[in-house]
């Protein structure tokens, strides 16, 4: 599948993120010649925690305490799990959520939704979205996903994506926003992922990105 980069907006120290950033970012995207709006997108993440079991029974020591479950906008029939401590990714059918709810071994603590607008620009697809914390729908971050359709190799597309990132940053700089877009850097080999881009790569990107978004949101509050 085509390669993706995921960026998030890092507000300057002491400033608060507002939805104005999303408006300005969309305005930048729409100012590129030849860009066309391509509908809306939505992905969601569920943060699971293991439900404490009867302590008298022996517990397997390698069970993860926390699980991140991800439903991606471009794979509606699948559900991915990220176990950050074990560096594992699991792909399952979306019905696995029902199984987890029934098993009661893990419970969803909180949820994060990503939703926004997507654009088509030649061989690129851009998705700009808000990162909203459920249940109170508070804004925690602004993300932008960039997809380059012709290539699936991370290595071969590195240079293209870097230049696009620079083009985007220069365009956004003109808006004088109180912050900048930062690319989410991940060492995919730690998760056993190769050069050919897959949904597992996307899951890891979102997992890493949301941790950084929440951290910077907590720092600025």
């Amino acid at each position, binding site marked *: 599948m085509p390669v993706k980069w995921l960026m998030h907006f890092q507000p300057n120290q002491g400033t608060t993120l507002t939805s104005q950033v999303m408006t300005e970012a969309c305005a930048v995207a729409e100012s590129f010649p030849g860009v066309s709006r391509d509908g809306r997108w939505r992905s969601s993440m569920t943060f699971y925690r293991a439900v404490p079991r009867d302590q008298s029974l022996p517990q397997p020591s390698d069970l993860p305490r926390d699980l991140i479950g991800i439903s991606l906008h471009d794979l509606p029939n699948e559900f991915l799990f990220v176990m950050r401590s074990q560096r594992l990714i699991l792909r399952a059918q979306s019905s696995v959520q029902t199984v987890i709810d029934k098993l009661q071994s893990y419970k969803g603590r909180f949820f994060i939704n990503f939703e926004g607008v997507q654009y088509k620009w030649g061989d690129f697809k851009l998705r700009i979205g808000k990162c909203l914390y459920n249940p109170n729908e508070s804004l925690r971050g602004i993300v932008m996903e960039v997809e380059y359709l012709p290539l699936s*190799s991370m290595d071969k597309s590195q240079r293209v994506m870097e230049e696009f990132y620079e083009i985007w940053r220069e365009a956004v700089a003109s808006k004088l926003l109180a912050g900048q877009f930062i690319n989410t850097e991940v060492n995919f080999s730690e998760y056993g992922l190769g050069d050919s881009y897959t949904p597992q790569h996307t899951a890891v990107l979102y997992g890493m990105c949301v941790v950084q978004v929440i951290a910077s949101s907590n720092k600025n509050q």
Partner: protein
Amino acid sequence: MEPPQLAGSGDAPPKQVAQAMDRLGRAARLIAEIRLGADRILEALLASNENPRLSEKAAELTLGEEDAMRRHFLDLRTVGKQLEESGVLSGALRSRGNSWGLHMPLVCPDGAVVAYAWKRQLAGQAGASAVDRARLALKAFSDQKRRFFPQLEDDQLNRSNNDTIKFPPTKRPRLSHKPTQSPNVDSTEQKPMLADILKIIETEAPGVTISTYQRLEWSKRAESLASTMNDHSLDQPKEQIFANSSSNFNEVAVIELVASGVFRVLVSLHPAGSTDPDAVAFFSPNEGGSYLHSRGMSVHHVFKHVTEYADKALQYFHSSDPNKALSHLLSWICSHQSLFTKICSKCNKLLAMDKSLAVLLPPVHRPYLLNSKGQDQDFATAYHIGCSSYDV
């Protein structure tokens, strides 16, 4: 003059083609009338200059001609708009709209009209000379004739075309596809030639995997790629499902070149088993489906543009060095391994916005000129469309 008919996109393709040809003829007559009018005005001016008594008559004539020319210009503008809408001037329809097997006629930038484009590259070339186009048109025609009417002898063509390019008498009519060369063409000689060419290319470009297929084998492979790409659970697409027909070179019709993660290029040979490249197309390694063939078009902008440029390169290699057209073409294709990493030799950037197309592209133009010794120059430079200062 009869009023121009409205172009109907709902008209059947033969009618559209006929209308386009009719309008081209009308445009040519209008241009001739305008030229004549200009000549007459000039004559009148010269005559009145030499003989002042004629100046009044010359003035009358000039005014009359000016009126007539103005009318001709208006008519020409109307016809031009109709031709533009039908895609004749821009060639917008030449790569699609294959309705009923017909192509719209195309006006090349130097003014020549290509009425019937049997091959896409014939209609697409802009820089070749009239002689090259005539030679290629004749070759295309004779290929079609040989394919569909093998029972007709080649001598018949010699007798009926006394003033055109002559075919030398051939010993094996079916294999004599290079009319300007001595006919030492033999099916047993071609087998090592194609194999040798491919071996050399594999040595020169170790990062490119080359496979050969018979025509039907390739169709099946293209379909299998579609189902492979749809299955996201596979990290590596299945390769080499179909055995190469490399042991049977006299039936090879498709050469596939794959640079991992960069491109998949298809070159067709016609006739099968020859070293005569017929068409070329670039695709993403992600693509699969029945549209994956040497006359197909990628869904991605970058590969569409490289394919259009490759058509021109193919024509250039055919016209400048027909014996080695395949070798040059394959070398040129292999140089595109750095398509997504090599910066433009003019602006030193990788991505540039093409303003007319409104897309962001890497350098998709790689000059293909051979030097005076007929050798390729490593095809080392690359340019964005806007940075390419000339059409090479």
